[in-house]
């Protein structure tokens, strides 16, 4: 991936966040995003991203830069980076996964979905509603019915259930 010629200019792109802040990034790294790749093929060099705020864009650029230098030898290093990368609050993770989805960065979507799954699997039903901002739209009778259907799941392993929404 490294350029052998010092005089060769790497094509740079400018990504613009929803707050109008601009970030320069090498095209070869930015095209990890399917959305950006399509726009580059349509000859864009200034890429407006109205769905991604500045903070999230900075994190995404950091991810793409790290994964842009992926080789056979630094796999462990990248794994460590990914592990640290997902140590964020649920709010931040939600922003990230929405942005990654919009930008079509498959590896990041997978990483974030897995991080979500790992973090929420032991949560209680109430905690899930809080984390995702989901209102309970069941009537008490309906909820009781759904609970009964898989009662054993609610009863077994009760001690493992985590009620915090963080």
């Amino acid at each position, binding site marked *: 991936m490294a350029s052998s010629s010092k005089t060769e200019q790497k094509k740079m792109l400018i990504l613009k966040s929803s707050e109008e802040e601009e970030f320069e990034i090498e095209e070869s790294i930015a095209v990890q995003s399917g959305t950006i790749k399509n726009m580059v093929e349509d000859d864009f060099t200034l890429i407006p991203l109205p*769905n991604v705020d500045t903070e999230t864009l900075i994190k995404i650029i950091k991810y793409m830069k790290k994964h842009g230098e992926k080789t056979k030898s630094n796999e462990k290093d990248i794994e460590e980076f990914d592990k640290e990368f997902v140590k964020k609050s649920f*709010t931040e993770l*939600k*922003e990230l*996964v*929405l942005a990654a*989805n919009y930008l079509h960065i498959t590896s990041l*979507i*997978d990483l974030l*979905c*897995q991080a*979500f*799954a790992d973090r*929420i*699997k*032991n949560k209680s*039903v109430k905690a*899930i*509603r809080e984390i*995702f*901002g*989901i*209102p*309970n*739209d*069941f009537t008490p009778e*309906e*909820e009781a019915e*759904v*609970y009964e*259907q*898989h009662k*054993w*799941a*609610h009863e*077994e*392993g009760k001690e493992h259930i985590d009620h915090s929404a963080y």
Partner: protein
Amino acid sequence: MFLPRFISDQDINEKNVLTSLFCPIKAATDHLQEEILMGILSRLPMWSLFRFKCVSSIWKTLISDSYFTVKHLNRTKNDQGSQKLLITQMCFREEIFPMYCCPLSPAQLVDENVQKLKLDCPSNPKLTVRCKILCLYDGLAVIRVTDTFDHDLSTVLLWNPSTRESMVLPPTEFSDQPREYYFGLGYDSTSGEYKILRIYQDFNPFCRHRVKLPNEILTLTSGYCWRRIVEYPRHGICSLVWAMNFLAFIHATFHWIDISSNHFVVVSFSISNEVYGEMPLSEEILSLLMPGHCSIGVCVLGGMLYVHSSISVLHDKTMFFKFWVMKAYSVEESWMPLLTVDSSCFVDVKLKYMFPHGEVLYLFRALELSGSAFWTRNVGPFRLWPQCDNTGSVYAYTESLISPKSLTY
């Protein structure tokens, strides 16, 4: 009606079935699009999925959706964490026959305290019953539940041990004698249906007047009933009751061992066009295994067909257990010897599972019912299952959400 399998993640974006069910758009942070939600949900363990049905009606619909079931299964098939062992135990003295499931991973098999979940036999809990697993595929099991006190009272059910849901299968007009049939469960991708095959095996080779009962197939679709199928043309008399587990299903075909011209062959039966075939065994296998002097069966591990056999050396009272793998499907020359176990203290050795890195898990059963242990080539024994009269059977399965009732809806 089951949707076709192997739908890629890209196809989800084109599927608008669920959009109409969504609440009015809230703030972007609170409203995760359905494809992202599906991506998260499909990575959750079963236990979490069942509980999260209570979160909201949308989550309930998503988790119950047949499309999601397929997506979830495609993921669990390749996920080591979703592989489980199903174990039946037979405590004759106490007259109880418990069933357990436990995780199947090298690390956890070594752990003395591995969590074993007791499973209730799907039937009237007031009755004392025994469960025999007839076959397993895609996380679904065909089981026979027999009353402990009246062995003639038995029902055959389709059961999902992960969801605990079961459904009674229709009776057949022919004999339901438990011991005379072998079952296989497989998926026909041409028609998008699961099918159960049952093959009649004559247990008494010396009784020539015995009426041979037909083989039958059951398609799990609405209005389902057992349908008689054409006989295997060169059916020999084959009494191999101890060898077979259930019919091996691979490459959309069922396989079992039969005798043709006084030597063993692998009979195949394709699930979609219901055609019989024969696959030869290698010279080496045939020279070692003669009808009448051994037991033999086929099974599937890690996408390949295996032959397992036990040969008793009478004068010695020892047994040899030999295994072969067919490296390239239907290529006679590709049968490779896997392992030979020579032992006087084991009464049975079976292949149970193949780990992603290629390591095969064997189950050894010791003499005098003193227990069973798992071994692999490099490490063993893993565990001796809790003392009980006998470990009935052990099978590996994948967790799945497939609902037996929805198949015949």
